[in-house]
């Protein structure tokens, strides 16, 4: 469970989130909101990539400010732009990157990488330079690179923006099938229609919060 207590966040002297309190315990949660409403900021707070200017964020009781490292082991994060997330050069090396940092034994790493290559349909790209893959394939690799670490929560920041219809469905399906708890920031309403909860941000405040049937129309209306 992720909990935000009176969280305020500012970049320099510019506040972008104002006194947010949320208990995120549903299995699939979406965050909607206009450009600049604070979605990415909120998402980055959830695994301690940034820490709040005031208030606190905790994951399963661990404070992101004090136990940042432990929190990041629990909460995986997939960035919008796979290019900045992939540590090149080859697909296989990239998948092993996070596992090596955890100092797992060599054969354990090899096992997990092989499994991930299979599961996400990347096996045939194994030795290929990652930057030569298409947008959709890169996005899959970025997701695989996080999931191979087996986090208990996964946060996605707009994971479908570069994808065609087919790859988008693939990613939507993949997210749907994840056993983990999931938080997705997106503008893609199709993706979240069967989610358990939708939080809508505007100007750094929650303006709607509830099941999709309630919150999505509120979002559409506000931005209409």
């Amino acid at each position, binding site marked *: 469970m992720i909990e935000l207590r009176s969280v305020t966040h500012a970049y320099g002297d510019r506040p972008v989130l104002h006194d947010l309190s949320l208990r995120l315990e549903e299995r699939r949660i979406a965050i909607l909101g206009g450009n600049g409403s604070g979605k990415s900021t909120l998402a*980055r707070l959830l*695994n301690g*990539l*940034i820490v709040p200017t005031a208030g606190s964020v905790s994951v399963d009781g661990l404070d992101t400010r004090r136990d940042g*490292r432990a929190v*990041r*082991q629990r909460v*995986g*994060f997939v*960035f919008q*732009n796979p*290019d*900045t*997330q*992939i*540590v*090149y*050069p080859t697909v296989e090396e990239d998948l092993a*990157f*996070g596992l090596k*940092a*955890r100092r797992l034994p060599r054969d354990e790493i090899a096992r997990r990488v092989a499994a991930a290559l299979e599961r996400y349909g990347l096996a045939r790209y194994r030795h290929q330079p990652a*930057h030569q893959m298409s947008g959709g394939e890169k996005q899959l690799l970025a997701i695989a*690179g*996080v999931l191979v*670490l087996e986090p208990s929560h996964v946060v996605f920041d707009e994971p479908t923006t570069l994808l065609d219809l087919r790859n988008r469905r693939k990613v939507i399906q993949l997210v749907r099938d994840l056993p983990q708890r999931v938080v997705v920031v997106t503008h893609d309403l199709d993706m979240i229609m069967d989610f358990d909860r939708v939080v809508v941000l505007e100007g750094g405040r929650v303006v709607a919060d509830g099941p999709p049937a309630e919150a999505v129309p509120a979002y559409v209306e506000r931005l209409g």
Partner: protein
Amino acid sequence: MLGLYLHRDSAVHRLPAGAKMGGLLLLTAVVLTLPGAWGALAAMVAGAALLAAARLPPGRVLRDLRAPVVMLALLFGIQALLAGTGWQDAAIAVARFAALILLATVVTLTTRVMDMVDLFERLFGLLRPLGVNPAKMALMLALTIRFVPLLGDLVREVRMAQRARGVERNMAALFVPLLVKILTMADDLTAALEARGYDPADTGSQR
């Protein structure tokens, strides 16, 4: 950080970039050659006067200056302590450079980047016989100014992506994706420039 040009309606803003840069050079020479604290004092007074004349908000300017001055104080202060050169000398050295940074900041805040780049372009015109293409130099300078914040964001983003994958600090792994991203961005930027009618074979001067 690169807030740069701060638009106000003032005589200092309207002054030609050449005059401002020339003046800056001159004052720098004076500050560095005058003995003791006098040069620094003169430059401080000049800087403060220009600041007022330019109608710049002093609070904002002082905030911009805080980081470099703290840095300078550290550089010279620790040296004074360890080498025993005396705190007065250290204070004077800090004051000199702080004054020069103040002057440079006033010039930067009141001069449109384009005007500065135009000035460089004219200066590079003098080097044309050496095979220097002033228009290209000017374009590269402007591009660099535009890219600095972009690169800053990129560095931040890559670092975060790595921390998200459990790697808290790994310099080598940081630069691989960063370089790949820079090099692929270069292709898009090149296309964008050419799509907007930029022609590298065009060697004549602007205007």
